């Protein structure tokens, strides 16, 4: 058993990454408690998506530590290994499997054995069906179960991707701009859904929409030029002079 270095579920310390000399993430430090929900805001290009790329193994940081569960060094693992540890991700641009039906998208995401020979001999089962039914209810796509994911609207794809996260049932969910392109009513419903999910999962949400962030009612981290500018309650950070300058004041 490895020694637990920290009690945080996610621990980033002094993380930096540069693309052709441009520092997209600049000695970023951030910690997430088990069970916490955290909103991350910041102007375009602040490095929010890049931060998620680092956590999920898509981008290797040049320096810094990224620890999951206090023991696992995420910088040494690839995407599949990190996903199997229990870190799920919803992308900024919704990416679902367009050739598959809504139901099959969820089925592929559903927690379970991911090895070739298990999926080869996989059989449909009632518990699995019921799980998919429940998720379809939650994301309100029950009537589109058999529809090809390519035919969904932008908002529906966002929801399907959240549904896929639910199916994956990870310990930590990374949700990148979930309400982009949604109507007000849809935005509100999404906030509800995320709060529901946050009851038994840790969640990091990146979002621009201030009304939405207010709705989430959680601790907020402001990212700017690849590092943390301010952190705390939304009212506290939005009163911060530097935050107003770089972000809210514009």
């Amino acid at each position, binding site marked *: 058993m490895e020694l637990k270095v920290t009690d945080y579920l996610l621990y980033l310390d002094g993380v930096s990454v540069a693309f052709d000399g441009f520092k997209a993430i600049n000695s970023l430090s951030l910690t997430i408690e088990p069970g916490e929900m955290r909103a991350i805001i910041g102007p375009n290009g602040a490095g929010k998506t890049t931060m998620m790329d680092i956590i999920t193994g898509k981008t290797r940081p040049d320096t810094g530590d990224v620890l999951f569960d206090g023991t696992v060094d995420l910088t040494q693992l690839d*995407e*599949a290994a990190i996903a199997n540890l229990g870190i799920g991700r919803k992308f900024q641009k919704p990416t679902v499997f367009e050739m*598959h039906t809504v139901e099959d998208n969820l089925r*592929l995401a559903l927690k379970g054995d*991911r090895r070739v020979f298990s*999926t*080869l001999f996989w059989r449909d089962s009632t518990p699995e069906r019921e799980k998919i039914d429940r998720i379809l209810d939650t994301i309100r796509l029950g009537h589109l179960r058999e529809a090809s994911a390519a035919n969904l609207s932008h908002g529906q794809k966002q929801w399907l991707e959240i549904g896929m996260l639910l199916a994956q049932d990870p310990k930590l969910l990374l949700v990148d701009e979930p309400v982009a392109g949604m109507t007000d009513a849809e935005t509100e419903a999404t906030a509800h859904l995320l709060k529901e999910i946050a009851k038994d999962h840790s969640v990091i949400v990146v979002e621009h929409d201030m009304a939405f962030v207010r709705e989430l009612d959680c601790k907020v981290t402001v990212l700017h030029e690849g590092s943390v500018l301010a952190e705390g309650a939304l009212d506290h950070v939005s009163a911060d002079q530097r935050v107003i300058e770089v972000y809210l004041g514009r």
Partner: protein
Amino acid sequence: MLTNRFLAMLDARGRIFLGVILAAIVLVPILNLVVPTGSSLHVPTWLVSLMGKYLCYAILALALDLVWGYAGILSLGHGAFFALGGYAMGMYLMRQIGARGVYANPILPDFMVFLNWKELPWFWHGFDMFPFAMLMVLLAPGLLAFVFGWFAFRSRVTGVYLSIITQALTYAMLLAFFRNDMGFGGNNGLTDFKDILGYPVQSDMTRLVLFLLTLLALALCYILARAIVTSKAGKVLVAVRDAESRTRFLGFRVEHYKLFVFTLSAMMAGLAGALYVPQVGIINPSEFQPGNSIEVVIWVAVGGRGTLVGAAIGAILVNLAKTTFTTGALAPYWLFALGALFVLTTLYMPKGVIGTFAEWREKRREKAVLAANASTTPAE
């Protein structure tokens, strides 16, 4: 229960396909053996062998469609796996010649005696035993595909780059098999076969049986491929094809899935090659020519990528056209025709013969429904 599962796995297209194969298994022997030679219904043995050759190509096309159509791996080297399977079968057939060769050496094939070799190279041992040779028909291409895929898929080589290195693979094999000291008969390859399992290779009956076995192999390969693409693993493959990186973030080891399907497909190609060699009577390095592998891609594209049945039909149609073309005055223009065919299907029939036909039928059905609705609506 098992039959139910089996039928659920097949779509209407698959049932028709297997039905046609079954009909051919019953009818062709009758038309060849029972119907008298003079009758217009008589199927001569040369035609049986020609069809047998096409069917081998159909299996090869099916194998390629499994990796290209479902996993997005555009292999331009499947001809190499086909040829390897062919060589394994050829080695068995060579050893069956025994002392009946020109030099009458009971162990060494003629070309080895000619090269002044004193003993059989180690890798020729065991090929006098049919079961061992059949094992090699699957293992040799399977192993090559596994090793190649292991490196390529782990380093995440995809798209055009992967296609190019598969071309390089088959070209490297071509050069290697050309060399006399490789021990595979060099330029001339392996030929002058006498018998297979004690039956003369050239006899009408053997040819008919080989044809029937090829039909059976095509049916079995189709059923296996269909079982894979309709399983959950098949859905993962399609997910990899359309959004590889997304699939990784769900926790699937993409490289394992690719390796599995690539290796299996190479073994299918090897089987096709093994059935091909006794029917055409020769295997030589030209089977490794890069152009051969590219032709397979054209068959699949013409028939319909990602449909399995389409791949088989494409292989048969294009080769029918090729035989017709290359035996007439138009022979020198065949490659141009093939190129044009590829360009035209890509532009105007991106779903191939099968896909276009399905679309046309769908449209017609819709029209019929509309017409039925219109006629039941009372006139205003």
